[in-house]
C-alpha cells in the first residue's frame, strides 16, 4: 500500500535526474538531483496549501466557512486528509489487469512532475534551462493521458472505461488550442526558451498583445486539467469518478496529487507566457511570480464555484468549433502582424474586440438540443 507512494517518489526522482543528466554535462548531476528533490518537497507543500485554499474559497463562495477543526482556520485539515488516505486500505478489484493498474498512477504522476525541471521561477532558479522548454512542457504533459487510459482500461469497470474514453477525447481535443496558442507566444518572443519568453516581455506583458490568446489558453487549460466546467471525465454525478473509480487510498491520492501539480503548472505557464512571469516593479521577482500564480489559481477556483458542468457534446462543440478555429485565426493574424511589423497594440485591440463579439454572439445563440441517444444492445453492435 505505501509501497506505491515510495515507488512513485523514487521513480520520479530518478526520471528527473535522468533527464537532467541527458540535458547537461555530467558534472552537476548530484546538484540537479538535489534540486529536483527540493522541488518535489516544495510542490507537495504547495499542493497541500492549494487544497486548503480551494476548500476555503469554495466555502466562502457558498456562504460556508469551510474546514475549521484541525489547526487554526483548519490549516492542518489537508495534512490530516493526506494521512488518512495513505493509511487507508487499498482495495484492488479481482478482475483488474494488475500490472497496468499499478503502473497507471505512476504514468500519470511522473510527467506532471518532470515538466517542473524546466520551469523557471526566476532566471537563475531553474533546475535545467532548456532551449526548447515550452515544447518540453507541452510534450510531457500529453503523456499523462496514457496513464488515464491505462487506469480506466485496467480497472475492468464500465464507468472507468467511459471516463477514460471521455478524458482521452477531451484532452486530445484541447491540446490543439493550447499548443497553437503557445506557438503564437513563441513566435512573438522568437524563442521556445521559457526564460527568453519572459525576458521578451520586459516592456509589455503579452496579455496586452494577446488577450484572445490568453482567453483561449486559459479555457483550454481548464479543460486540460479536467476542472469545472470541463470536469466531465470524472463527473461524480454521471461517471461516479471517471477513470479512478476503482482506485482508493494511496493510489487515488497520487492521481489527485498529479491533478494539483498540473493545476499549479498551468497557472505558472499562464503567468510566464502572458503575465510577464517574475517581472514587476519594487518587489523581488519570485514574489511577483507567486502573486501572479496566486491570482490565476484563485480565478480557476472561482470558476469552479460559479459554473455548472458542460455536457460531453457541448464540450466537443466548444473545443472543435470554438477554440480550435479561433486559436488558428489568432496564430495566422499574429504571424501577419509580425511579418509586416505592424504595431502589436492593434493586435491587442482586435483581440479584445473579438472577445467582446464572441461573448455577445454567445449570449444570443440558440441553445443546442442534446443529441438523441439511441441505445443499441451489444448483440446488435456485433452484427453491425
Amino acid at each position, binding site marked *: 500500500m505505501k509501497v506505491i507512494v515510495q515507488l512513485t517518489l523514487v521513480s520520479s526522482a530518478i526520471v528527473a535526474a535522468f533527464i537532467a543528466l541527458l540535458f547537461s554535462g555530467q558534472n552537476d548531476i548530484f546538484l540537479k538531483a538535489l534540486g529536483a528533490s527540493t522541488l518535489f518537497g516544495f510542490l507537495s507543500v504547495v499542493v497541500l496549501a492549494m487544497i486548503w485554499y480551494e476548500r476555503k474559497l469554495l466555502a466562502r463562495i457558498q456562504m460556508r466557512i469551510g474546514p475549521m477543526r484541525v489547526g487554526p482556520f483548519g490549516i492542518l485539515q489537508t495534512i490530516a486528509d493526506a494521512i488518512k488516505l495513505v493509511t487507508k486500505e487499498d482495495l484492488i478489484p479481482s478482475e483488474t489487469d494488475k500490472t497496468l493498474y499499478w503502473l497507471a498512477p505512476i504514468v500519470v504522476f511522473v510527467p506532471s512532475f518532470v515538466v517542473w525541471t524546466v520551469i523557471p521561477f526566476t532566471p537563475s532558479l531553474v533546475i535545467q534551462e532548456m532551449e526548447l522548454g515550452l515544447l518540453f512542457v507541452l510534450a510531457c504533459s500529453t503523456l499523462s*493521458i496514457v496513464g488515464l487510459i491505462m487506469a480506466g482500461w485496467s480497472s475492468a469497470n464500465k464507468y472507468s472505461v467511459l471516463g477514460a474514453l471521455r478524458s482521452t477525447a477531451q484532452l486530445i481535443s484541447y491540446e490543439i488550442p493550447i499548443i497553437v496558442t503557445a506557438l503564437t507566444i513563441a513566435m512573438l518572443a522568437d524563442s521556445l526558451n521559457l526564460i527568453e519568453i519572459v525576458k521578451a516581455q520586459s516592456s509589455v506583458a503579452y496579455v496586452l498583445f494577446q488577450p484572445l490568446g490568453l482567453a483561449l489558453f486559459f479555457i483550454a487549460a481548464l479543460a486540460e486539467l479536467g476542472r469545472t466546467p470541463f470536469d466531465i471525465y470524472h463527473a461524480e454525478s454521471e461517471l461516479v469518478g471517471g477513470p479512478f473509480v476503482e482506485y482508493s487510498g494511496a493510489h487515488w491520492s497520487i492521481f489527485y496529487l498529479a491533478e494539483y501539480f498540473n493545476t499549479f503548472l498551468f497557472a505558472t505557464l499562464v503567468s510566464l507566457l502572458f503575465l510577464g512571469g517574475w517581472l514587476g516593479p519594487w518587489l523581488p521577482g519570485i514574489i511577483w511570480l507567486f502573486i501572479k500564480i496566486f491570482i490565476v489559481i484563485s480565478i480557476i477556483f472561482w470558476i469552479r464555484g460559479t459554473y455548472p458542468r458542460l455536457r460531453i457534446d457541448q464540450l466537443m462543440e466548444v473545443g472543435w468549433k470554438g477554440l480550435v478555429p479561433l486559436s488558428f485565426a489568432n496564430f495566422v493574424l499574429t504571424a501577419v502582424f509580425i511579418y509586416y511589423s505592424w504595431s502589436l497594440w492593434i493586435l491587442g485591440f482586435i483581440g479584445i474586440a473579438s472577445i467582446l463579439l464572441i461573448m455577445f454572439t454567445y449570449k444570443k445563440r440558440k441553445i443546442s438540443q442534446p443529441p438523441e441517444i439511441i441505445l443499441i444492445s451489444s448483440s446488435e453492435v456485433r452484427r453491425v
Partner: protein
Amino acid sequence: MSGEVIVFTIISAMVLFGALGVVSTKNVGHATLYLLITLGSVAGIFILLLAEFLALVQILIYGGAITIVLLFALMLTRVDEFSSIKDAVQRPVAIVVSVLLLGVIITPFLQETLGGQSLTESNLRTLGHELFTKWLIPFEVASLVLLVALIGAIVVGRDD
C-alpha cells in the same frame, strides 16, 4: 566507458525490451503500451544525438497522439474478442519479411564507415529555415497526404 555509452546502452536495452514486448505479448492493450516504451526510448536516442527538437516531437506525436489513438480504438472495440492473437498461419511469411527488412537495414551500415562525424547542436531556427526553403515541396506533399487521410477518415466515418 563514458557516460554517453552507459546511457545509450540503457536506452537501447529499453528499445529492444519494448520491441520484443510488442511482438511477444498476446494482449493487444499491452502491446500498445510496449510500443510506447519503444517509441519513448527512441526519443532518448534522439536526445543523445543532440536532436532535442526531434526527441520532443517524437514524444508529442508518437507518445502523445499515436499511442493514445491506438488505445482509444482498442477501447472502443471489444477487447475480449482480440485478447489473444492467433497468428500462427502468418508466421513463416513474417519470418521471411523480417529477414529481408533486416538485410535492408544492415546494408548501409556495412557500406558506410560509421562515426567520425562530430555532432553539432541542432538549431531549431536552421531546421525550420531548411524545411520551408530547401525541403518545401516534400513538406507540403507530406501535409497533403495527411490532409487526404483526414478527409478520407471523415468520409468513411460519416453516416449519411
